[in-house]
């Protein structure tokens, strides 16, 4: 018998108002760097902050927009575009950044980082 122990829990990172529409911020959640974005419609997305191509922790500083209606962020280093919903790179198939659940509770932004 295997017992699965999940240590995942929601961490509050900042007030929702702290996020500019179509811009990201970086958060440090128990040693994990997370990029959190607010789109024009007010939706929240969270990705790993590390650019998988360049290796630097910069994804939160990319330009937010859309490609064919899909919400996106472009890496500020070399402009590869990623799907905010899935973390998939739309320019280089197979390249991914991790995604994290994120929500707004009582005016606060919370992110769920799973540290199994």
């Amino acid at each position, binding site marked *: 018998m295997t017992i699965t122990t999940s240590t995942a829990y929601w*961490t*509050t*990172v*900042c007030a929702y108002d*702290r996020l*500019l*529409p*179509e*811009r990201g*911020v*970086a*958060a*440090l*959640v128990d*040693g994990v*760097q997370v990029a*959190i974005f607010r*789109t*024009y419609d007010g939706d929240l997305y969270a990705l790993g902050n*590390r650019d*998988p*191509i*360049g*290796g*630097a*922790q*910069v994804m939160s*500083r*990319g*330009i*937010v*927009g*859309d*490609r*064919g*209606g899909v*919400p*996106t962020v*472009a890496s*500020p*280093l070399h*402009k590869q*575009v990623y799907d905010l919903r899935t973390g*998939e790179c739309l320019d280089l*198939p*197979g*390249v*991914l*950044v*991790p995604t994290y659940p994120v929500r707004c509770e009582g005016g606060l932004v919370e992110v769920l980082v799973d540290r199994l």
Partner: protein
Amino acid sequence: MSRNLVVAGHGMVAQRFLEAFADRGPDGWTVTVLAEEDRPAYDRVRLSAWFDSYDAADLDLGGAPAGVELRLGQPVTAIDRDRRVVSTPAGETPYDVLVLATGSRAFVPPISGSDLPGVFVYRTIEDLEQLKEWSTANGRRVGAVLGGGLLGLEAANALRLLGLETHVVEFAPRLMPLQVDEGGGAVLKRHIEGLGVTVHTARGCAGLEGGPDGVTRMRFNDGGELAVDVVVVAAGIRPRDELAEAAGLAKGPRGGFLVDDACATADPAIWAIGECASLSVAGGDGVCYGLVAPGYAMAEVVADRLTGGESKMALPDTSTKLKLLGVDVASFGAPFAPGLDVVVTDQVTGVYAKLLLTDDAKTLLGGILVGDASAYPTLRASLGGPLPAAPLAMLAPAGEGGAKMDLPGTAQVCSCHAVTKDHVTDAIAGGCADVAGLKTCTKAGTGCGSCIPLLKQLLAAGGVAQSKALCEHFTYSRQELFDIIRVRRVTSFSELVSEYGSGRGCDICKPAIASILATTNPGYILDGEQAALQDTNDHFLANIQRDGTYSVVPRIPGGEITPEKLIVIGEVARDFGLYTKITGGQRIDLFGARVEQLPVIWQRLVDAGFESGHAYGKALRTVKSCVGETWCRYGVQDSVGLAIDLELRYRGLRAPHKLKSAVSGCARECAEARSKDFGIIATENGWNLYVAGNGGFRPRHADLFLTDLSTQDLVRYIDRFLMYYIRTADRLQRTSAWLEAMDGGLDHLRDVIVDDSLGLCAELDAQMAQHVTAYADEWRATLDDPDRLARFVSFVNAPDTPDPDIKFEVERGQNVPTRQGPVPVTIGGAR
């Protein structure tokens, strides 16, 4: 055994022959070129372009093909046809085949005083060098050109650019008598007088007077006189056929080696091509052609014949299209033949057009266009066939109707390289998707370039989309968006994208729109919605580096800095452990700053009197300078002072791409101004302005735009140049590519920002004045406002914790990013 092919002369036609011969890959030939001039073939058609750069290399044609022995400064002085040997001052060279391509010389009519100092011809680079040296010496004020033909008007423009009061003297009753008729001549004259050039038609020169110090006076055949300091004789050319008589070769009725339609002389071993040949087609009289296209055709014929072909010369097409003193002039076919004509004279816009048709009005025989030659490529290609549309529709300004595209497949699109419409459409079907591709595939458009508009039309007709859409969110080009934002007074991206675009934008359109908004609504660029449009560099007012740190570049106008400020930069770099490097733009770059350190670093810099250097922006970077007359014993103006003034005037100016400038205090050009978007070089009398230079990926020397300007005029023209660029360039298009893509090029630019042909100058001036008034240092404005500072944190939930992944090692005594092995890439799959 190898055969000896000797070519006498190395001009454009000889060069074309050598290339055509080499392209056919013949075996068993030893090729030797014996040339009189000391330089290899250059582009004499564009001779006047030498005045743009004073650099002969700009006219270079790439030298003789590999394997050809080129002997410069070795003119052929005699031909011994019995022994098949030519002589040069260095000795004898045997030939099996001799191709004469000796070209022509300038004709100087027998008038007294034509040998005085200060009297020049207009034929070689050396002629131009001497003309410039003489004309720019002190006290030379008035120049006159003898001859109002094509070359004469080119020479007149040269005198004008050299700053002389310019006169053109033409014996015939109109300018360009060989190309245009009376009506066209009158329109042309009005254009040219509008530029301040005095035109004397129906007037001959009776003699020149002067002394050892140079020419001083021109006497006219009607008794009048003109005080002159410079005279250029442009009275036509004569074939260089001196070798004919002694060698017993026949000459044409007006000189030139007489050749048949195979370009062969009566001696089967000797051929003649280009301007030295008197071509007799189908037994007609020999005629010398002073145009490059017939010369190229002759070169192709002889190359073909020598390699076993049987091609022949047809009666050459003498169509020409050129821009003289900014005026389009085109003449094609036989415009003076009898037939039915259609004439349009628009004295308001200064346009004249004439088409000549056969009596049944079915076949186009020729025509003349002055003032607007946009219809030329289509009309020329329609020669000898039916017009693709009604005559008046063909002449309508910028009429780009689809009807025009109904050219027959055999119509010659590019006359320089004899490329037909079929060749071009085949190349498009074979995958050529742009003008550059067509140039490579077919050579079309690589000669005079006048067929490029037609190539674009054929590309469009071939279904190749020449999309100008900025990105998937806007179908408009950057220029169109600029106009929409300006005219509709749009102030935000959301407003623009909801009314004129779709979706929520991307990393292409957002920074481009942010840049336009920075021009139309000057002020702080990071407030409100505008903040979300900026690239990370503009967003953090610093330059992102590979490890996610930023570099900091304080402005050091003109590269001048006090020891105190230099010490502050040193102290800041030391205290924050920043890697320090001198940039190419005469300032200092500080690397390795973390995002949360930027405000503290800048607080110290701003306190010491520094401001943002905009190294992060598509904006003015630096105005580099040499030390100038203050210290330099060669300097003629205060280059540092001007550079500082210009840098302070244009600091913070957002543009489609970065802008660089430099000021040199003398012609030695130590500041490398000609590699800049706008460069200034001091003269004894003021400043020369060069535009659209580039270093970087595709280097380009800037073009000389205006000469001997006062500082006030200089600033006015730079203002307009920059604003016109900002308004009309594509996203990320540097000034060099912008100018090269501009219809009409430098002349058009001059029309718009000097002669105000579009009536835009007042607006451009006002917009720049608005920029200058609204400028404020972005870093000071950021430091003064806690809301604006809020973004400069490493982590929103741990603002003072540095990014733990940023690590440095020490190299040559300074911090550099720790180099890890190859960066792992997360590959998708089961998660």
